């Protein structure tokens, strides 16, 4: 187990180094004077230019600049945002809980609906329900989510006025400390009446939008995995023993069918974050994705560079954990290769 753990850990090192190189190279490739790109000032005097060149280490050889960059990253220095003059790392951690909260709720929605629906579809294979669900799931994972979000806003928020259009909470009516950054927890801690409910109401639409693609994938995966399991001998044995159909399907079949589904869920962090960029933009959700897009439009390259670096580090980290957990559960994986 330890060997597997170390080998898997060692594999992430070159990926991480390459990531540092790409983010380093990317900002150098941005057209325009590097000082202007990074300081955000235009038409500055030669003295000031020289000062910044020295300050930013641009007078050093490229390889040394790269090593400096790596050194700073490894010490947690991800640069300073041009537009807010705060540290990129600080900014990231202020916004990250919002993205995590949204992504978790989206995934919960996708699992809570997708797994039972897929299981029922498999049991009632060929029925109207099965065909209907497969059609819905096809539309689910083909959905341009930015459009889907706008449609939901149009009907649910604008026309029916059931749910708010954007943001995480009604800032005019509620004001409280946010110790965790997770709105659902913070509103509960604040003790303000109605705040929690308001946070939930803000969360519903974005979570549905971000959860739509995973929902389609999970429903399909569960169905096909369940179909396979249902034809296994142990399911027949369980039936022959006289167990209730509910027990056979719910306990014996579904538990075994869920293994590939869990893997898919674990490895979908990356696509979830990609979807979060679009979802957060539509709903003005103050998360990391929204921030990255804002950084581009403000030409805030240090924030973009640090943000991409941090988001990718999170993905690498989560994928590592998923692999390790999977290796711990499944001996075939850890002894493979």
């Amino acid at each position, binding site marked *: 187990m330890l060997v597997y753990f170390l080998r898997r850990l060692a594999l992430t090192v070159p990926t991480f180094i390459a990531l540092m190189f790409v983010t380093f190279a990317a900002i150098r490739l941005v057209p325009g004077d590097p000082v202007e790109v990074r300081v955000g000032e235009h038409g500055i005097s030669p003295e000031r230019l020289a000062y910044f060149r020295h300050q930013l280490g641009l007078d050093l050889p490229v390889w040394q600049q790269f090593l400096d960059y790596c050194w700073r990253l490894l010490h947690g220095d991800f640069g300073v945002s041009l537009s807010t003059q705060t540290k990129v790392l600080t900014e990231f951690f202020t916004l990250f809980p919002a993205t995590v909260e949204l992504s978790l709720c989206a995934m919960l929605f996708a699992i809570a609906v997708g797994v039972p629906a897929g299981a029922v579809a498999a049991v009632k294979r060929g029925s109207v329900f099965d065909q209907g669900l497969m059609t819905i799931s*096809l539309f689910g994972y083909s959905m341009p989510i*930015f459009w889907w979000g*706008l449609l939901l806003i149009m009907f649910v928020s604008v026309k029916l006025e059931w749910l708010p259009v954007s943001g995480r909470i009604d800032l005019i009516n509620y004001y409280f400390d946010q110790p965790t950054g997770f709105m659902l927890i913070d509103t509960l801690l604040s003790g303000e009446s109605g705040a929690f409910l308001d946070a939930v109401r803000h969360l519903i639409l974005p979570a549905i939008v971000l959860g739509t693609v995973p929902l389609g994938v999970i429903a399909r995966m569960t169905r096909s995995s369940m179909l396979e399991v249902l034809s296994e001998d142990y399911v027949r044995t369980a039936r022959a023993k006289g167990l209730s159909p509910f027990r056979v399907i719910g306990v014996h079949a579904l538990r075994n069918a869920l293994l590939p589904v869990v893997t898919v869920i674990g490895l979908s962090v990356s696509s979830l974050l990609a979807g979060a960029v679009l979802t957060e933009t539509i709903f003005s959700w103050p998360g990391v994705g929204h921030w990255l897009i804002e950084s581009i439009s403000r030409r805030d390259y240090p924030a973009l560079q640090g943000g991409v670096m941090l988001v*990718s580090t999170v*993905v690498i980290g989560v994928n590592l954990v998923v692999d390790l957990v999977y290796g711990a559960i499944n001996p075939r994986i850890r002894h493979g290769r």
Partner: protein
Amino acid sequence: MAADVALPAVSSEEAAEVLAQPTPLAAFWAAFRENRGAVFGLVVISTIALIAIFANFIAPHSPIEQFRDAVRAPPIWEQGGAWRYALGTDGDGHDTLSRLIFGARVSLFIGLSVMSVSFVVGVVLGLLAASVGSLVDVIITRVMDLIMAVPSLVMAILVVAVLGPSLANTIVAVTIVYLPRYVRLVRASALGELTKDYVTAARVAGVGPLRLMVSTVLPNCLAPLIVQAALGVSDAILEAAGLGFLGLGAQAPTPEWGTMLADSREFIRSDPWIVALPGLAILIAVVAINLTGDGLRDALDPRMRRT
């Protein structure tokens, strides 16, 4: 098998019919045709392709001409709609129908170019990694892992931020994002094939390394690759539309569906159809391609799981 099982009587003509091997294409078509959804998808996507090809003749107006006298005209089913602008006009007075028609051209062009470039580059890199091995393999695999570690849209954003937003750069960005899928697929199936006897036989017969990989191994890796390529077109269209929506893709007045959506966001309350129609076009195209791709998978490789 038990010897006393009575075999059904078969006439010689029937036997000949059964025994005659259908051509691979005929066999494929017979399997594909079984899946009604896939055929439906193929019909829809072929129609879209025809619309895209003959856009100049079909579209009632130029996609970039601004009709100042008819800004945000309603579509035909709304109060005040007229056939002149059947699907209405947008905030700049562009005819929506014409833009959607030309948009099909843009979206399919993006999807097909991303697919073909990543297909070719993926095959080359994948075969290289599988055949040369050692350091080349490690480098290619690591680079692909890196691309996969960055969320697709974030990677595309980074590329566009560096290169600047345009249609061509959208294609570059989306190609980079989807390249690893092809490389990994080719590498994995080539490695699998390389251990088989027929490859050893070809080696023994003196086939050179290039010919071995390209004409012996590659054809046997094609089935999953074709499926991936078909589904890759729809993913590329979605990704490019997403970039367009974020303002990082094709720039106005290019009639790209995602860009059209983004440009008309402000009219979501007053004239919802301007927002609804481009998204509907994206959805229809993507669903049709995915249906076709699923059918391809079932037809090309029965071993793959039927879903």
